[in-house]
């Protein structure tokens, strides 16, 4: 059946577009939506409903529709789109949905984008009010952004054939848009939906940039863009949606809003059917009836719920042979699939379309999101803006005003006030267009529903929610609309209350016998229309999903086959496998090489903070649990930091660079946090202290050189340095040249071995690394990664902050009482050490665990229990395994663990559930290798 008119509409009739729907081939034209093209081909049944499986069609012409759900299958699979918002293009392939779609299994090849935009005045909606507002603001010299959802400006004018200033309204629209686009500082965004309005003039808008081009979309151009608009003033000219009336069997395909049928006619040249009944509570649907009759639709009857039909419009209908019955309502429909007949009382009228108008709902979603208060307008039967906000104005039918010239006038006022509020007052007067409209929508009757079979009277067609559901909710005692919404799910999906919200509110008020004016409307929340996660993600995906931080030496690690571990945002070499090696064998090799000869690693990710000032020592004494002010220039001390609660937050070394200068290191993951922590104390508690902290983390490349032959390697690359144990003691540092570049060499060890840490300006990192590799070649120098570092330090019982600790662990729990000063009168955390909780003898303490079977590797995170057989739950947990490795040096596996009263349990046998067995383990001190520290000096 061809329902395309012979002329009219803003479609290109000379061009045919081929598309398929549910596997059948159809044609349409540029300018069509998928919905208009389907209707033109006589396809009214799009899919079926989510719960009841009832047929669903097209209710509205735009984004207020919630039933024409389709899955686009080509160009790229995308679920749950509304056919009314899918622009037709050649090759489009879609199918109707039974209420639910399916996400594509393959990655979306399209690009997505975001862009920040700042303006003085944002205008949402390019209907008459929005256009006049934007033009007024633009002429004042303000930076203006105009966003509109449609592919062309005009708003409600697109759905009528009215004249403005005695010429087709499209010409007036085109003139305004042309002036806007040629005005500097004005940005006009088409196909752009403002979907969220937030504080401080922040508006998110989704622009569909290439969707309509289908397969012809240019490569490289982002398909959709989220505009992040920051505006000083906003004019909301978001229009109004026609409201349906609920009656029994109101959900059949072919039942459509009257204004939408008019839009399909005038914008797309599509008729809603061949024989239609019009059911209205107000004047506006008469225009639809008359226009459609003039286009060849047999208007079988106009049913006006009001006691009397408007005389002038009734006469116009009579002149066209259209019967009008006032004081009556539609009481039911028939049809298998599409509607085939309408019941008006006892009368049955055969038809293939039923056009409904229950009045108008101003689109107040964004206004409400901006925290605007809503007020119930009893005459309109709708919530309207209940007062202006200082930065948000509403104009046009979004206020409830439905007369076109009055809407334009509101637009002008809003544009002037908005521009003036933003400081722009020099605008010229924008003339208001004169309208020839025959129909206004005021003087309507507010009618929510026609009584009948409540189970077949649909309030939210997408959710299959009926009048019966609403009454069940109120019957269950729910009184607030928010609760009814959640109970019934009305207005929760695509609809977001656009067509269902007001009616649900009306039915609830009726059922409770309360005034709607006393009901608080449900809160509108973003997004106004659905937005894909891909669009929200923008370009923050793949490699750009999260920054990858790399050290200066990173390219060398890549070139030498390192596998990487993520540490925060850093990529750190994890281990360097040789051919055929897995993690296990590579790490055993790296450990052995380091303990027996020499290894080196990239330690550049360690946080480094330069602390300068007369009070630097005093300041560090407060931050660390041990004394730093007594450290001598040239020396290094290990330190632990706690929070005020006494729990360990970080550790590292402190180098005294000069009388008033220290360099402190932090763990890799805490660098930024510790700098913030220092600044917080300095700025907010101790601003009198003369101390300044500066991050130098990335200024330095840091290379630990570790193992008994490290001294030989260092001597080879630092000829000017006396590397003897006497001249270069443990926990001291020297400035020298390494491989010809200035370097600071620290003698510290995180492995128990003789070790040095070489620091050079990051630019020299690779060169110095390579020089060390070359110098170490005779000793089989072995680069190692974080896994080997972890094993080496664990063998020595050194904790890793964040692995052995979890914000509930004190230095004493770690066995580090030696690092807690008894002399200092105060430091952060000290007072908490005296709290009863911190002195319990059953605190979890760091110990070593040796599995009875030296080949068994305990999974990290395993729980620890006391008995060799699991009792009935609850089972008392003594703690958990924090680190666990096979050890080359020990010739067996071992673990570190936090265990209740662990320090008292040394020598005890405990049990670790691993899969279905209980593994016996012996509790030991945490230091397992070289307890005497004999290896430190090489």
């Amino acid at each position, binding site marked *: 059946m061809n329902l395309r008119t012979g002329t009219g509409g803003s479609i290109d009739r000379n061009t045919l577009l081929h598309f398929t729907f549910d596997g059948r081939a159809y044609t349409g034209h540029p300018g069509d939506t998928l919905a208009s093209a389907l209707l033109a081909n006589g396809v009214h049944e799009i899919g079926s409903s989510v719960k009841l499986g009832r047929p669903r069609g097209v209710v509205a012409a735009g984004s207020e529709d919630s039933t024409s759900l389709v899955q686009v299958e080509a160009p790229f699979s995308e679920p749950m789109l509304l056919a009314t918002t899918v622009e037709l293009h050649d090759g489009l392939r879609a199918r109707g949905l039974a209420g639910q779609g399916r996400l594509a299994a393959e990655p979306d090849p399209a690009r997505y984008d975001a862009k920040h935009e700042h303006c003085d005045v944002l205008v949402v909606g390019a209907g008459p009010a929005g256009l006049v507002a934007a033009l007024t603001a633009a002429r004042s010299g303000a930076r203006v952004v105009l966003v509109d959802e449609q592919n062309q400006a005009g708003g409600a004018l697109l759905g009528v054939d009215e004249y403005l200033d005695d010429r087709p309204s499209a010409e007036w629209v085109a003139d305004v848009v042309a002036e806007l686009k040629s005005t500097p500082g004005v940005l006009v965004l088409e196909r752009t939906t403002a979907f969220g309005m937030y*504080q*401080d003039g922040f508006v998110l808008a989704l622009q569909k940039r290439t969707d309509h081009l289908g397969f012809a979309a240019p490569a490289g151009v982002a398909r959709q863009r989220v505009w*992040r608009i920051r505006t000083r003033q906003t004019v909301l000219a978001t229009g109004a949606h026609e409201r349906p009336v609920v009656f029994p069997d109101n959900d059949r395909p072919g039942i459509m809003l009257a204004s939408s049928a008019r839009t399909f006619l005038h914008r797309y040249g599509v008729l809603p059917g061949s024989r239609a009944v019009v059911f209205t509570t107000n004047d506006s649907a008469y225009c639809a009836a008359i226009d459609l009759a003039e286009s060849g639709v047999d208007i079988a009857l106009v049913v006006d719920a009001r006691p009397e039909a408007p005389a002038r419009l009734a006469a116009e209908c009579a002149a066209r042979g259209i019967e009008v019955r006032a004081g009556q309502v539609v009481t039911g429909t028939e049809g298998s699939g599409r509607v085939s007949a309408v019941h008006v009382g006892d009368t049955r009228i055969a038809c293939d379309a039923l056009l409904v108008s229950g009045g108008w709902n101003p689109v107040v979603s964004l206004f409400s999101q901006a925290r605007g208060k809503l007020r119930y307008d009893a005459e309109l039967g709708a919530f309207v803006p209940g007062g202006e906000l200082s930065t948000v104005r509403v104009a046009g039918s979004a206020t409830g005003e439905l007369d076109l010239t009055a809407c334009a006038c509101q637009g002008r006022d809003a544009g002037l006030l908005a521009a003036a509020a933003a400081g722009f007052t020099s605008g010229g007067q924008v003339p208001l267009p004169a309208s020839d409209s025959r129909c206004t929508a005021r003087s309507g009757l507010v009618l929510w529903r026609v009584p009948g079979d409540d189970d077949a009277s649909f309030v939210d067609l997408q959710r299959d929610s009926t009048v019966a559901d609403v009454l069940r909710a109120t019957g269950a005692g729910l009184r607030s609309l928010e609760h009814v919404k959640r109970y019934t799910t009305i207005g929760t999906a695509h609809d977001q209350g656009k067509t269902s919200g007001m009616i649900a509110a009306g039915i609830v008020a009726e059922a409770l016998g309360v005034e709607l004016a006393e009901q608080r409307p449900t809160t509108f929340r973003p997004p106004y229309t659905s937005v894909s996660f891909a669009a929200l993600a923008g370009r923050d995906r793949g490699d750009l999903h999260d920054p990858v931080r790399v050290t200066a030496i990173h390219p060398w690690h890549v070139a030498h086959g390192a596998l990487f571990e993520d540490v925060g945002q850093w990529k750190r070499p994890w281990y360097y496998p040789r051919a055929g090696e897995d993690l296990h064998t590579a790490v055993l090799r790296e450990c052995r090489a380091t303990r027996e000869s020499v290894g080196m690693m990239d330690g550049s990710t360690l946080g480094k903070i330069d602390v300068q000032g007369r009070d630097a020592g005093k300041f560090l004494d407060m931050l660390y649990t041990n004394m730093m002010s007594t450290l001598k220039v040239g020396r290094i001390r290990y330190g632990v930091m706690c929070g*005020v609660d006494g729990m360990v937050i970080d550790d590292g070394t402190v180098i005294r660079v000069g009388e008033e200068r220290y360099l402190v290191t932090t763990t890799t993951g805490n660098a930024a946090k510790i700098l913030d922590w220092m*600044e917080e104390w300095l700025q*907010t*508690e101790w601003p009198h202290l003369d101390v300044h902290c500066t991050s130098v983390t990335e200024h330095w490349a840091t290379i630990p050189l570790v193992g008994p032959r490290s001294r030989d390697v260092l001597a080879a690359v630092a000829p000017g340095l006396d590397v003897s144990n006497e001249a270069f003691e443990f926990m001291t540092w020297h400035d020298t040249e390494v491989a010809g570049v200035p370097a600071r060499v620290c003698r510290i060890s995180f492995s128990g071995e003789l070790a040095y840490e070489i620091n050079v300006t990051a630019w020299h990192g690779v060169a110095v690394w390579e020089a060390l590799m070359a110098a170490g070649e005779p000793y089989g120098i072995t680069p190692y990664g974080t896994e080997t570092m972890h094993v080496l330090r664990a063998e020595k019982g050194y904790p890793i902050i964040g692995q052995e600790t979890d914000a509930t662990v004190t230095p004493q729990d770690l066995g580090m009482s030696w690092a807690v000063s008894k002399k200092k009168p105060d430091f952060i955390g000290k*007072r908490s050490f005296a*709290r009863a909780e911190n002195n319990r003898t059953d605190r979890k303490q760091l110990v070593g665990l040796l599995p009875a079977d030296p080949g068994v590797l305990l999974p990290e995170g395993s729980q620890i229990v006391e008995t060799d057989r699991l009792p009935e739950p609850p089972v008392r947990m003594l703690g958990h395994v924090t680190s666990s490795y096979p050890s080359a040096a020990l010739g067996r596996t071992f673990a570190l663990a936090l265990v209740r009263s662990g320090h008292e349990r040394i020598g005890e046998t405990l049990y670790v559930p691993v899969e279905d067995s209980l593994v016996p383990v012996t509790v030991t001190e945490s230091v397992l290798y070289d307890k005497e520290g004999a290896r430190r000096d090489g």
Partner: protein
Amino acid sequence: MQLIPCPWCGPREEAEFHYGGQAHVAYPEDPSALTDEEWARYVFFRDNPSGPFAERWSHNAGCRRWFNAVRDTRTHDLLAVYRVGEPMPEVTA
């Protein structure tokens, strides 16, 4: 995305800032002189008003300065910002 008016850099997006909890909670002069309960009050207890609340914020991604702000916890509106060391200004919520 809310704007927070940094006293130095002007309004910037909230994402540039770090929240620091209640303002005007001074580190005790002599923690060792406090009872366990008094110390626990300092460490663990903070106000949680419905309405204006003086808080500390840091402009982390900008000038790295800490400052104070009075925020209405019901609306998130920032009623005033002021520098560390200054008294909380009078605000009308």
